[in-house]
C-alpha cells in the first residue's frame, strides 16, 4: 500500500493543475448550476472540451495512437481529482469519451476507429446511448428495436428512451435485435447510428425537475450501413455489457466532483443559516448529518481508489462497480435530504424564486437525486449483480 504519488504521477498532477489554472474560462460558475438542457450551456461546454482537446486533455486514458495519452488508471484518477479541485466545467461528450471510445478501441474495426475516435475527443461529434426502451429497462436484453439486413444496410425500426444528450447528439451507439428467433441475449447487435439520418425523430422527455436531460428517440426505416456494426452481427450483448462496465467503472469516479463541491457549499451555508437562534453549523443535529455525509463522500472516494488499483492490475472493470453505483446514488439522496433539512423552508424554492438560496440548486438537486437509484441500472439490479457475480449466490432470473 502506498498512497503517495510516484514522481511521474506528481508531474502529471502538476502539469494538469497548471493547465487548468490558466485555462478555465472566465464566468464559469463553480457552484455548477446551469439549466441542464440549455443550448447555450451545451455550446459553452463543447467549446471547453475543444480547448481541453487541443491541449491533449480529453480521453487521456485512450492510447496515444488514437489521440489519448495512454494514461494509467491512476492518472485518470488524478485527472478527476484535479478537475474537482479546480471546479472545472465537465466534459460534454462524456458518453463518447468514457463509454463508446473504450468500447471501439477494444472491439471496433480499424476503419471504425479511424472514422470515429478523433471526433469523439474533439467534441466534433457528440454521442448518445441507445439502450433502454419503453419495455426494456432493467431487462435490457428484452429490447425490441429491430434491424433487418437489406443489401449493404440495416433498416432500423423501433424506439429508444432515456437517451441522454439525444437532442444534441450526432451519433448514437445502440443495441438492436437482428434475430428474433433465438434466445433474447443471442439475437442482439451493436450498431452506430447517425442521428441525422432520415427517419430519426427526437422528442425531449420532461422529467420531474422540469428539465429535459433525456429524450425519446424513434427510428423509422433508418438506414445504417453494415460497416457500422461493432463486433459481430448477433454478438452485441457482450459488447453492450462491456460498455456498461465502463459506465459503472469510470463515470462513478467523476461524481466526486459534484459531491465534494456540494458538501463544501453546504458547510459554508451552515455557517450563515440560522437555526433555532444560532448558526446551523452549531446545531448538534445538523453537525451530525453533515459529518455523516462528509464520511460517506470520503469513503466513496476511497472505494474508488481501491477499485482503480484493482482495475489497473486486472485491466478490466469488474462487477465491484455495482457497489459504487449503489453507494453514490443512495448517498446523494441522503445528502440532498440533509440539505433540505438544513435549509428549512428555503430549500424548496426553485430558480424562479427571487428568494431561493443558490438560485434554487438545492430544490433541483433534491429532485434530480431521486433518479440516481434508477438510472444506469437500478439499485435492485446492482444488488442482483453483486449477489450473482460477486457473492456467487444462485441466479434469481
Amino acid at each position, binding site marked *: *500500500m502506498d*498512497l503517495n504519488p510516484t514522481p511521474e504521477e506528481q508531474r502529471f498532477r502538476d502539469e494538469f493543475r497548471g493547465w487548468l489554472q490558466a485555462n478555465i474560462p472566465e464566468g464559469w460558475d463553480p457552484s455548477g448550476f446551469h439549466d441542464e438542457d440549455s443550448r447555450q450551456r451545451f455550446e459553452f461546454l463543447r467549446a471547453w472540451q475543444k480547448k481541453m482537446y487541443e491541449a491533449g486533455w480529453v480521453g487521456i486514458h485512450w492510447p496515444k495512437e488514437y489521440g489519448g495519452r495512454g494514461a494509467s488508471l491512476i492518472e485518470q484518477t488524478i485527472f478527476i481529482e484535479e478537475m474537482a479541485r479546480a471546479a472545472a466545467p465537465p466534459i460534454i461528450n462524456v458518453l463518447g469519451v468514457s463509454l463508446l471510445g473504450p468500447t471501439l478501441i477494444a472491439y471496433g474495426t480499424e476503419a471504425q476507429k479511424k472514422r470515429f475516435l478523433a471526433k469523439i475527443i474533439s467534441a466534433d461529434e457528440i454521442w448518445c446511448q441507445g439502450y433502454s426502451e419503453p419495455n426494456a429497462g432493467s431487462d435490457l436484453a428484452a429490447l425490441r428495436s429491430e434491424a433487418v439486413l437489406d443489401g449493404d444496410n440495416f433498416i432500423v425500426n423501433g424506439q429508444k428512451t432515456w437517451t441522454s444528450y439525444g437532442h444534441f447528439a450526432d451519433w448514437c451507439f445502440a443495441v438492436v435485435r437482428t434475430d428474433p428467433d433465438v434466445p433474447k441475449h443471442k439475437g442482439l447487435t451493436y450498431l452506430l447510428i447517425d442521428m441525422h439520418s432520415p427517419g430519426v425523430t427526437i422528442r425531449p422527455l420532461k422529467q420531474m425537475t422540469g428539465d429535459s436531460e433525456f429524450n425519446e428517440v424513434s427510428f423509422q426505416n433508418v438506414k445504417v450501413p453494415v460497416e457500422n456494426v461493432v463486433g459481430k452481427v448477433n454478438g452485441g450483448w457482450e459488447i453492450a455489457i462491456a460498455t456498461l462496465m465502463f459506465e459503472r467503472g469510470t463515470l462513478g469516479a467523476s461524481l466526486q466532483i459534484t459531491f465534494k463541491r456540494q458538501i463544501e457549499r453546504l458547510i459554508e451555508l451552515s455557517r450563515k443559516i440560522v437555526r433555532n437562534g444560532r448558526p446551523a453549523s452549531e446545531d448538534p443535529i445538523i453537525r*451530525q448529518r453533515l459529518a455523516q455525509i462528509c464520511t460517506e463522500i*470520503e469513503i466513496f472516494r476511497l472505494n474508488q481508489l481501491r477499485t482503480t488499483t484493482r482495475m489497473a492490475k486486472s485491466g478490466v472493470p469488474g462487477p465491484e462497480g455495482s457497489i459504487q453505483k449503489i453507494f453514490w446514488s443512495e448517498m446523494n439522496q441522503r445528502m440532498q435530504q440533509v440539505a433540505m433539512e438544513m435549509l428549512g423552508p428555503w430549500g424548496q424554492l426553485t430558480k424562479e424564486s427571487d428568494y431561493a438560496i443558490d438560485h434554487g440548486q438545492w430544490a433541483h438537486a433534491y429532485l434530480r437525486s431521486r433518479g440516481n437509484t434508477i438510472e444506469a441500472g437500478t439499485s435492485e439490479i446492482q444488488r442482483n449483480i453483486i*449477489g450473482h457475480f460477486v457473492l456467487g449466490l444462485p441466479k434469481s432470473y
Partner: protein
Amino acid sequence: MEFELNETQRLFQRSARELFAQECPPTLVREMIEKNQPYSDAVWTKLVEQGWTGLIFGEEDGGLGLGMVEMAVAFEEMGRALVPGAFLSTVALAGPVIEKACSPEYRSARTQAICEGRSKATVALLEESASWKPDDVKLAANTSEGGVRLNGKKYFVNDASVSDLIITVARAGSNLVLAFVDPRSPGISIKAMPGMDATRSLSAVEFNDVIVKEDDVVSDGAKARDALDHALNVATLALSAEMVGGMEWLMEASVEYAKTRKQFGKPIGQFQAVQHHCANMLLMTESARSAVYYAAWMMGNNPEEAPLAVSMAKAYASDGYREVGNLAVQVHGGIGFTWDESVHFYYKRAKASELMFGDATYHRERIASLVIDRAGEPAKAVSEAAD
C-alpha cells in the same frame, strides 16, 4: 499510488489467518465465552511466541516494528477470529501511551516486558460520566510525598483483571496526569462489569488513597494529553480494523448459509430479498475496510491529518458492524437467534465495539469539529491525495 495490500502485507494476512485458525479456533472461543473467561494464557503465549505482542514496538525494544497498515491487518484477522483477551488494550492502547509519554529507559523497560510476554497493560479513562473526552476526567491525583495519591473510580476498564499495569488518567488541578499503577497496590479494588460481549473483560476500578511514586507518573500535562490522544487514535484504528474482520465473517457466514439453507425447494440465496441483504453486507464491509486502510495509512504517513480519517473509520464501522450484524441474524433466520450458532457472538461484539472509544455519534461530532469549525477557512470536507 496503490491502494491495496502489497505482497508482504498479504502474506502477513495469510499467516495471521492461519495462526488464529490453529490457535484460537471457534471451538475455543465458544468454550471461553461459555466459561465466562475472556482471557486465555495459552492463546497469549502463542501470540508472544509469534512476536505479536511486539507488533508495533521498536526493534530496539524487542518489537517487530511494523507499521500501522500491518497493525490494521493484524487486528482485522483477530476480529474475524473473534480472539478474546487483552491484546487490544495492551498493544494498541497502553503501548502507544508508553511510547509517547515515557522517558527512553522507562519506555524500553515497559515495552520489552510487553514484547516478551511478561506484562499486560491497559488504560483507565472512563468515569461515571462515561465520556471518552480526556477533558472530562475528574479522578483526583493529589501531590503526595514522593509521588501522587489517587482517589476516585474508573469504569469500563478493559482487561484490568489480567493486567499488571493500569495507566490511569487523572487530574491534578488543570493538568491531566498519567499514573502507571500496579493493580496490586494497596487501595485498589477491581470489580468485573459483565457486559453482553463475553469475549472482552470490562472492570470498575476503585482507587482509595493509592500512592503512585513519582517515577511512575507523567505529570507534564501537555505530554500526557498528547500521548493519550495519540493512543486513543491508534486504539480506535485497531478496534475499527477488528470490526471490519468481524463484518467480513458475518457476511461470509450469511452468504454460505444462504447458499445451503433451502425453503420452497430452493436455496434462500436465490431470493432477491435475501440476496440484497447480502449485497448490503458486502457494501458496508468493503466500505469500512476502505476507511480503515486509509486511516491506517494516514496514521503512519500523515499523523497530523489522521484523526479525521480515524474518526471516519470508527463512525462508519460502528454503524456498519451493527447493521451487518442485524442482517446476518436476519439471513440466518431462527438459527441466527440460537445460542448454538456463532452469529450472536459477533452480534454482541459489534455492539460492544460500537460503544468502545466513542460511538458513531461521538466520532461524527469530532469530524464536525474538524471540518466545520475551521473558522475563516474555506470548507474542506474531503482530503486529497496530494495537498
